């Protein structure tokens, strides 16, 4: 198959549209299968190790994806290395759980507070970034991330944050009555051969909630990715990349450095806050130990492993940091390695090793590897620019649309 004629699609033709639809269709099918097959914390047993692949962890991965997406904006596209994304992730988590638990807000209305607060906080911390550059900025933001757990454990805030014990929120996202989740599950169980993977019997209330939470968060994540995708394709997005590539020449061409830097910090922090909301909505508790500088470094790992400056890299990165540390600690026996070495912080060890190995061998991250493989099978030809006076080709796309890169966030094949 490797040398078979590759598929070629020209942007703007019907074939390309079909290809895109097929990709998205398969992606949504995958989401549905994941949601219904793994809602009941699934397990794979491999070499006597039990690996959990439950839906809650996928939802957690979505929260990481949104936070890494924010990091992509500030570090990947604007080139301001921030190690403080965990601070905003934590702020979002605590703020929304405080609103939901103590003030009976709905999860999504809490975003109305989380987004502006994190945006403004991010701008405030972006102001030093105007003078602090490169590594110094990384230091300051790392300090910020390291301070967060002690801030939420302050005596003054204890009533709001519940101190070291962690803030419990027992409010769940309940699916609306009209949604036939149960019916859908029963329907899938009747599919011959593969039906048994979709469980047996009815969905419990807890399972329905999980599926609902998952899909709602997928939609939220999709909105975030779409917005960032549009941002980076637009004029401000090009300005951000100009700042990253050469600050001096960006300033010379008339780009307002301070505006774009603080703005990118604001956007990144707001996304971090949204990610925190998703995290706590899924987990039900925000505890200070979850928001140390380790999580900020993990976000960097996710960004680098996925691919710096790509949206799909954030998806891959979120999955990596949600699953690999957990699977590493699930691994309790491997042939040839004494059990003692498999206990303890094996997750961070693998994360660190991945960071180093990928920087050496695949600096573009997993996504660049996937793209190289994909390029062997599928080639997307850019749309021919319409010549003056000639008629547009088949398909007649809207004339004001400028196609830059296919930027669907989700890996479409």
């Amino acid at each position: 198959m490797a040398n078979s004629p590759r598929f070629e699609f020209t942007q703007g033709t019907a074939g390309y549209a079909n290809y895109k639809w097929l990709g998205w269709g398969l992606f949504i099918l995958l989401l549905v299968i994941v949601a219904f097959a793994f809602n009941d914390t699934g397990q794979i047993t491999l070499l006597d190790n039990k690996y959990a692949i439950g839906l809650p962890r996928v939802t957690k991965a979505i929260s990481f994806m949104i936070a890494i997406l924010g990091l992509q904006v500030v570090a990947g596209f604007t080139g301001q290395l921030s190690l403080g994304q965990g601070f905003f992730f934590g702020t979002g988590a605590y703020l929304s759980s405080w609103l939901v638990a103590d003030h009976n807000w709905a999860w999504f209305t809490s975003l109305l507070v989380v987004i502006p607060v994190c945006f403004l906080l991010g701008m405030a911390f972006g102001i030093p970034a105007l003078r602090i550059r490169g590594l110094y900025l990384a230091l300051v933001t790392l300090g910020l991330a390291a301070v967060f757990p002690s801030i939420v454990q302050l005596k003054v805030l204890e009533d709001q944050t519940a101190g070291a014990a962690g803030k419990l929120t027992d409010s769940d996202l309940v699916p609306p009555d009209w949604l036939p989740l149960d019916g859908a599950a029963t329907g899938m169980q009747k599919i011959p051969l593969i039906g048994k993977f979709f469980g047996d019997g009815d969905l419990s209330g807890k399972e329905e909630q999980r599926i609902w939470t998952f899909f709602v968060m997928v939609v939220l994540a999709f909105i975030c990715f779409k917005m960032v995708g549009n941002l980076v394709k637009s004029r401000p997005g090009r300005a951000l990349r100009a700042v990253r590539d050469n600050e001096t020449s960006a300033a010379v061409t008339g780009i307002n450095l301070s505006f774009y830097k603080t703005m990118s910090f604001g956007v990144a922090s707001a996304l971090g806050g949204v990610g925190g909301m998703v995290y706590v909505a899924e987990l039900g508790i925000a505890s200070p130990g979850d928001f140390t500088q380790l999580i900020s470094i993990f976000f960097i790992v996710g960004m680098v492993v996925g691919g710096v400056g790509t949206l799909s890299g954030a998806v891959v990165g979120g999955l990596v940091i949600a699953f690999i540390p957990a699977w590493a600690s699930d691994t309790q026996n491997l042939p040839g390695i004494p059990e003692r070495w498999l206990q303890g912080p094996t997750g961070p060890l693998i994360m660190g090793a991945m960071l180093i190995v990928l920087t050496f061998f695949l600096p573009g991250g997993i996504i660049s590897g996937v793209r190289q493989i994909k390029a062997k099978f599928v080639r997307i030809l850019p749309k021919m620019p319409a010549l003056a006076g000639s008629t547009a080709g088949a398909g007649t796309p809207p004339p004001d649309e400028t196609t830059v890169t296919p930027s669907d966030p989700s890996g479409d094949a």
Partner: protein
Amino acid sequence: MELFLARIFDGLSNGSTYALIAMALVMIFKATTLINFAQGEFAMFGGFIVWVLATQQGIPMWGAVILGMLISAVAAAGIERTLIRPFDPADHLPLVIITLGLFLMINAIAGIVWRFDPQRFPELFPSGSVFSIGNASLSWYTVFTLITVAVVAGGLTLLLNKTKIGLAFRAVSSNLESSELVGIKVGPTLQFGWAIAAAVGTLGVCVFVAAPIRQLEPSVMVSGLIFAVSAAALGGLDSLGGSIIGGLAIGLVQSIAVPYLRIPNELSLGAAVVVLMLVLLFKPSGLFGTPQVERV
């Protein structure tokens, strides 16, 4: 007054350990303008090696410290050769990512090998106090940490000013490209910087955890790195003498300003971050550093 004195003594002994780690950071920054995020973890790991040598192999304490410094210097030189040198020293992002990866890995390896139980570190200095005024007593520990800092600073100054490799090191840190042109082997010279930094860091951690109130554990340097970085930035990231002043200043801020301004104790790390931020905002070159000039 007694309390004030006690806090000054406290601050001096904390500050001198920050100064030691800060000197390690400065050694690497001077040569490569890179901040090694794994420096604290290198030092922590070295501290564990010393602990193993002293408590399990029965080597006398100071022998173990010197052996541990040698081992970590060799290890750091190896890490520099394999993981750092292949990259362009002017492009910081991959290097920072490598050091972050090292941070995660070294911390995790220490956690896997020695677990997270705090370990009692053998005494390095005589216990007891030199003199006491009321409740405030100047302990031998404080005196000896200050002496250690002075000895290390003196030793580094001699090494940099009186030896050939020290001269090469100063040349590389002043201008990397020109020193390459005059025939200095830049790679091994930087490697020398990494080795010295790791040895100084190891000594710093040993002194740090030898304090009667502290114990050795894998996370001992996680916040220590931030204090040390603030100290180095305050003194000027490329000035060895500055890092001593910076370290003592951060230690004194931590033990004097924090209680008197009624900042909760947990936020002393926050105070260090604020100092770091203010320094970088208003005097990015630090107190004694050379200002950086940007060329287009």
